[in-house]
């Protein structure tokens, strides 16, 4: 279900703003997609992973006949060492295979190479690793406790990143406030669980000595740069290809040591070598996310206006630091974006990342924002309660309504619709009718709750935003080359690298709009470092804004050139020519020429241009924007079974604004998928370590993504505030869906819990946690009934 409210977008546009079918899908839905794991290989690898969370490696014993590679074999290969030049960052290097000691359960200690996957796993089973067990540091708070063991020599106190910020007037405002409200939030650890786990395939070309590495990644160019650095080879000796990618959600934007080893092995064996990760490995050893403790305090005046915010963010970043962003990603994003959509000019923040004996954290859709939005929106609901006002009213008092707005930390917010999306959502959900229903239910011993989450989402930001973090590798811009070939067909080569989100379709729509050919005839080529221009890939809700912007720039150049050629061929003024239906037409006449004829002319009849037009028909565009803020209001209605602690999401509504929407159907899909993951974050998914550092949730029965049964129909309302900070007017919307649900759902749970005087500030809000609160609650209301959560159809 989806409703669109048009702003000034969609004005007279032919292709932009239409729900054309995804050009990617015919191959994918017919099983003709090509994924890394589909490639045949002469050798298969199985990694032997550490069963211990910490300790010195005393020995590794290989079974007879097995090819087993350990750190000693790859001594020349450099460690993965991301760098920040700010925020007291302490660089640590991650060895490709554990060197001398292990630092988390699942760390690759050895690689077994065999002729088949089965053989490799059989041999791997027989490899014995002898580790002198050491105590494990699992929890982020334990890592900074006095006397905690130190994980890395260069990281005293285990604090690897420390950011501090305070506005000059903070203390005065703080002490003068009417009320200080506090929220101690816990965001537990998650795994992004893309449907396709990691996979790599490297082949050696004996003629050139080059390696071609196919891998499932969101950033093929950076994989090439990083692996060439690790192996000490020229980048030109390595070709990286990201074929079809079965989801990444951020997990595939960091460099994994496994890929480095596969490339090394192909060179070493002068052959083809492949590795396909299984789900268990993915859950224990691929990148984790979201593990944060956040204490947030708000100082309010007597009218419930927020005056100052104080945040203390502690991110448990795992054993190493992810490349290229570094583990500063979660805490530093929290620091920059904590105030969200609210007007507050006094701000203090301490944001730290600590290392522990757990799997390294990487990006996951929303990075930090699901956690900080959850905390901030809990704080707002707590404040509303303390002031005895409606949770919506406290938001009305505090949402930013004047644009551009400069946040306390200096971020520039472009025009958005924080109030408007909230009011749209409020009206659509019909709050008074819900309150009446809630009361009736309570009288029967049934507990319903409603929860809101309003948030801003910084998207499509270019290099300045990353430079502000002091990243040694500062991503940001994108380049696109568009050619019309001599046959008249359009091909766009892009540096970004989609992982399933439909970018081929949306970029084709942008090009089609400019040069008047149907998007279905346009090929968007990506993912191959030999054919695509250097680019940064997919992450941070950037591809449509940045790669889309670069596409628009290039397409406008192609358009300009086509108009010139048409003017030449039709002997008309360029201003009289329109490009549509694959033709250039002189307005008001029947004179026209096809794009194909113009293209042929541009390559084969250039002498006719008399030097006035350059031969060929290829243009490029590069775009590096400052960033733009999307926004949304999410509303959840839940039914809480207070006897079991079970939460059923009965209704979920999103009113969102991502500027101009290029393809509404694709936008809806992004929000639907995001909300589904957000429901997992709010209620179900949690990576749990025991005290020894072993993972208790290493399969999909224990780490629990929601199934279709747990996801209600999602109602969408789109508003369009065209962005002034993005030349397509589009804002990013890749992550928004995941950002709102923890806040909206847990606020709704707390609304349902109101009669019991207990509150939950932990995600996931599991039934066990909810029951523990209720068991000790003072009110012992006698509830009834509770649905049938276990049955399937």
């Amino acid at each position: 279900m989806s409703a669109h409210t048009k702003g000034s977008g969609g004005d007279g546009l032919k292709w932009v703003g239409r729900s054309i079918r995804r050009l990617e899908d015919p191959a994918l839905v017919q099983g003709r997609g090509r994924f890394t794991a589909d490639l045949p290989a002469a050798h298969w690898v199985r990694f032997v992973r550490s069963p211990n969370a910490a300790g010195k490696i005393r020995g590794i014993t290989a079974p007879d006949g097995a090819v087993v590679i350990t750190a000693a074999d790859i001594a020349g290969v450099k460690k993965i060492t991301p760098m920040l030049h700010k925020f007291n960052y302490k660089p640590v290097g991650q060895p490709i295979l554990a060197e001398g000691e292990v630092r988390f359960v699942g760390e690759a200690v050895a690689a077994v190479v065999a002729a088949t996957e089965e053989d490799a796993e059989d041999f791997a089973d027989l490899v014995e690793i002898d580790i002198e067990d050491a105590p494990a540091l699992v929890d982020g708070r334990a890592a900074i406790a006095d006397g905690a063991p130190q994980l890395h020599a260069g990281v005293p106190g285990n604090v690897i990143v420390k950011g501090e910020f305070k506005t000059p007037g903070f203390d005065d405002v703080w002490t003068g406030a009417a009320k200080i409200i506090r929220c101690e939030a816990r965001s537990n650890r998650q795994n992004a669980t893309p449907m396709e786990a990691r996979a790599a395939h490297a082949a050696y070309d004996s003629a050139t000595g080059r390696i071609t590495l196919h891998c499932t990644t969101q950033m093929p160019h950076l994989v090439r740069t990083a692996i060439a650095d690790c192996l000490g080879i020229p980048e030109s000796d390595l070709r990286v290809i990201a074929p079809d990618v079965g989801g990444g959600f951020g997990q595939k934007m960091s460099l994994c040591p496994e890929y480095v080893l596969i490339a090394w092995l192909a060179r070493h064996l002068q052959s083809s070598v492949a590795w396909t990760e299984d789900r268990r490995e993915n859950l224990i050893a691929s990148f984790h996310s979201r593990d944060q403790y956040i204490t947030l305090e708000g100082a309010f005046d007597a009218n419930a206006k927020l005056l100052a915010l104080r945040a203390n963010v502690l991110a448990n970043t795992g054993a190493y630091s992810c490349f290229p962003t570094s583990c500063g990603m979660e805490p530093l994003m929290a620091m920059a974006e904590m105030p969200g959509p609210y007007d507050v000019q006094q701000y203090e923040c301490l944001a730290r990342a600590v290392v522990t004996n757990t799997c390294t954290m990487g990006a996951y859709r929303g990075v930090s924002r699901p956690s900080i939005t959850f905390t901030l929106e809990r704080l707002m609901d707590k404040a509303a309660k303390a002031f005895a006002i409606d949770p919506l009213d406290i938001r009305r008092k505090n949402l930013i309504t004047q644009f551009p707005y400069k946040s306390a930390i200096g971020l520039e917010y472009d025009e958005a619709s924080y109030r408007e999306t909230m009011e749209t959502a409020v009206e659509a959900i019909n709050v008074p009718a819900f309150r009446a229903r809630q009361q009736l239910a309570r009288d029967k011993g049934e507990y319903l709750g409603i929860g809101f989450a309003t948030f801003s989402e910084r998207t499509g930001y270019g290099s300045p935003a990353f430079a502000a973090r002091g990243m040694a590798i500062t991503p940001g811009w994108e380049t696109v080359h568009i050619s019309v070939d001599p046959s008249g067909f359009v091909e766009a080569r892009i540096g970004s690298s989609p992982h399933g989100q439909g970018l081929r379709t949306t970029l084709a729509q942008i090009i089609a709009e400019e040069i008047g050919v149907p998007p279905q005839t346009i090929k968007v080529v990506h993912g191959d470092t030999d054919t695509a221009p250097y680019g940064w890939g997919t992450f941070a809700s950037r591809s449509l804004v940045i790669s889309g912007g670069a596409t628009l720039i290039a397409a406008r150049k192609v358009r300009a050139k086509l108009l010139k050629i048409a003017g030449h061929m039709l002997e008309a003024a360029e201003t009289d020519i329109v490009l549509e239906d694959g033709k250039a037409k002189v307005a008001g006449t029947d004179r026209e020429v096809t794009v194909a004829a113009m293209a042929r002319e541009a390559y084969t009849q250039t002498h006719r241009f008399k030097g006035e037009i350059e031969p060929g028909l290829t243009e490029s565009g590069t775009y590096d924007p400052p960033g733009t803020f999307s926004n949304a209001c999410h509303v959840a209605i839940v039914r809480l079974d207070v006897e079991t602690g079970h939460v059923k999401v009965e209704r979920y509504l999103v009113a969102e604004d991502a500027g101009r929407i290029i393809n509404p159907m694709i936008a809806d899909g992004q929000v639907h998928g995001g909300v589904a993951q957000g429901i997992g974050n709010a209620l179900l998914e949690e990576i749990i370590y025991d005290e020894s550092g072993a993972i208790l949730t290493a399969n999909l029965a224990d780490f629990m993504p929601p199934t279709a049964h747990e996801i209600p129909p999602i109602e969408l309302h789109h508003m369009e505030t065209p962005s002034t900070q993005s030349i397509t007017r589009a804002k990013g919307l890749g992550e928004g869906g995941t950002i709102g649900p923890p806040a909206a759902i847990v606020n709704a749970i707390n609304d349902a819990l109101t009669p019991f005087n207990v509150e939950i500030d932990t995600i996931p809000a599991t039934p066990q946690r909810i029951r523990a609160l209720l068991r000790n609650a003072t009110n012992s209301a006698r509830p009834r009934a509770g649905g049938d959560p276990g049955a399937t159809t």
Partner: protein
Amino acid sequence: MKPAPFIRHVPRTLDEALATLAEVAGEDGRILAGGQSLVPIMAFRLAKPAHLVDINEVAGLDKLADDGKFLTIGARVRHAAFHEPVTANPLGRLLTYVARHIAHYPIRMRGTFCGSLAHADPSSEWCLTAATLDAVMVAKSVKGTREIRADGFFDGIMSTHLKEGELLAEVRLPLLPPDGKFGFYEFSRRAGDFAMSAALATYRLDGGKMTDVRVGLGGAEASPRRIPEAEAELNGKAPGDAAFRAAGEAASAAIEPLEDHQTDAEYRRDLVKVVVRRALEHSLI
């Protein structure tokens, strides 16, 4: 997630199956029925059987018959067989209702009733059903046939008193009295997951009072079993909130709760209280 190497045997007759089983049982040979528990365990390499005796082609093991006293369920009968009642006796409706709570549709198309019992997951709905109704397990081997009552069959988490070389050839479930009532409730976090606690109750009404009450509990302890303390709260009483609550409380107090990362002992006791009461409430619908 590739299983360790194994040899698969596909016998066509029961005798052949038992003979093969006798031969390979000593070398960690295992029966393969629906494969819905065994195959995942092998993929995780938690089990590495050298031989699998695949019983899916064995003639005669698909028996599913009501002889007026028992419903007999052969080793090849799938969970999905119970999607519709298999007998007019109230047991038919009971099994249909319970079956909906086992996993997901594709798994129910393959997994077998007897495989569930042999696998003996503490949360298995069929194990709970067998324990509550005092099923009779018929085990066969080259040495002969043995009948085992449910209360002597389960032996803790994923363990039974079946002996090496024995095939659980069929299970006999006693029919309910024609006026028998039943109620079932289970709790899991996601649809299709193993129950974190489940209860099954059966009884008759005699002059408005409950009699022949059985209350079985699954997913709460190492093995499913009847809970006499709960039954005692119900026998001779009128069905209703007071008795049902008392039964829930009694069961909750009587158990030795299993603990895991999503269910500590207190929470398990909470759940038991609720599932027992709700199973009883379900019997009134």
